[in-house]
């Protein structure tokens, strides 16, 4: 399998990372050599193997659903790149 430029562009769209053509070409090369390495796995027959879904074989603990953090609005907004008093601000999405 080879990853072509079109596929790289498609993945970059899905990943929300803009990429120019020159970088996309370089990335296609890198990804192809990495996937050539990854595809070693195809030599292995795993038809009857159950996938590992959790490394720790314990059941998740339940906890009481209660509010523990109070009045942390300022803390939450503190690192916001652009804000007014109570909101995160983003470029206009509705015309």
């Amino acid at each position: 399998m080879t990853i072509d430029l079109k596929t790289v562009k498609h993945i970059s769209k899905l990943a929300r990372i803009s990429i120019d053509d020159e970088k996309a070409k370089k990335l296609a090369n890198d990804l192809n050599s990495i996937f050539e390495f990854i595809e070693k796995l195809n030599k292995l027959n795993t038809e009857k193997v159950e996938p590992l879904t959790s490394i720790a074989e314990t059941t998740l603990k339940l906890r009481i659903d209660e509010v523990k953090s109070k009045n942390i609005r300022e803390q939450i907004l503190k690192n916001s790149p652009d804000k007014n008093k109570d909101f995160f601000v983003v470029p206009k999405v509705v015309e």
Partner: protein
Amino acid sequence: MNDITSQNLNELIKNIKDKKVSSEEVTKSFIKRAEKSKTLNCYITEDFDSAINKAKKFDNKPNFNLKLPGIPIAVKDLFCTKDVKTTAGSKILNNFIPTYESTVTQNLWDEGAILLGKLNCDEFAMGSSNETSFFGNVQNPIDLNLVPGGSSGGSSAALASNLTPVTIGTDTGGSIRQPASFTGTVGLKPTYGSCSRYGIVAFASSLDQAGPMAKNVKDCALLQEVISSYDSKDSTSIDFKRNNYSKLLKNDIKGKKIGIPREYRVEGMPKEIEDLWIKGKELVKECGAEVIDISLPHTNFALPAYYIVAPAEASSNLARYDGVKYGFRSQGENLIDMYEKTRSEGFGNEVKRRIMIGTYVLSSGYYDAYYLKAQKVRKLIKNDFDEAYKTVDAIITPSTPSSAFKIGEKTNDPVSMYLNDIFTVPVNLAGLPGISIPAGLDNKGYPLGLQIIGKAFDEQNLLNIAYALEEKINFQNNIKEWWIK
């Protein structure tokens, strides 16, 4: 008394308790040395003024019952520290000041330790040489222009150059053990679920573990007993009985069964490393333990499986960096444009590469072929270890397939860089504890490490074996202080 900064953790604790030295003197000594060691580029953020204040406070009202009384410690910049900038080595978090503290670092401060600052690392812990950091390369104190390993490269370099008595790193595929091996220090990756992941910048959540790095096994054991705790804030934290590892540490490993996996004899491995492994085997026997040849038949498939699982989880974890709530933001014409520019400018090349791999293997039509396949292989790898542990108590392998390499040597070939982690990755996939201890020098005088892999939750036995071997090996690091200004 030795020069303060060259003392190990247990020596420092004793001298502080015996009032031979104050926390302030110790803290100032490490700061003074850091100021002469800028060439190494270990620190991303220094917190020196605050450290001195905390040390003075400790000295005014000392509590010698604490496990780390007034001990200054620098930590990897992947742990969120309240009110102290936390970058994960990335431009995208270059302005991020956490409003909360990671559980692991909180455990340190609760036992009396004092934050010196935040140490350099590969961007989002993705790398094996510290060369992917937005904040530049770290120099290995062993030799000029040598990588300190990665991703905990600032941590290993700071420890080996006596800028911090101990440190903590994180290990997703070898990021504690490989840099420990490259710098002649001890690094432990604990069992998955042993140390809380709360407040650690996430890379691959099913593999990430925090762990101690130290100058010797005893210091490492003490630090592990401090940082390991059950934490309800991490849903994968495991509630098991944690030992006072340092108190119970013993060098008697008579009758223990140690496995030597034949699949770790890889093509092109330098003879020096093969020899070191054989020496390790002999020393195990001298300690009265039994050496048993074992097989871990799926070892070869661990690294390819890792390079599906880890990027897949990373692509999901790193989706949060979108320029909206915190971190770097680039201006865009509209919301989508803002996302795409922010992520394109905010992430470095290796991180983008891994996000792309992860996005691809999780994308529609490819999930079964890649991600599901990798999870099945992961199961086989775990089964290999389960089978081996029916006959042995622990496993010994080399830590890395080579000693430290030069800066720039492997940056153009991602696969050759990934091969660094060939011996460490299976341990993360199986969720087991592993420790790297320094075991010798190669012909260039660069350190080489041996890795001991234990059973899940069996850190005590693992540390005991490491302790017994450390005594036999009697490793001496050869560090000339070429960088001191």
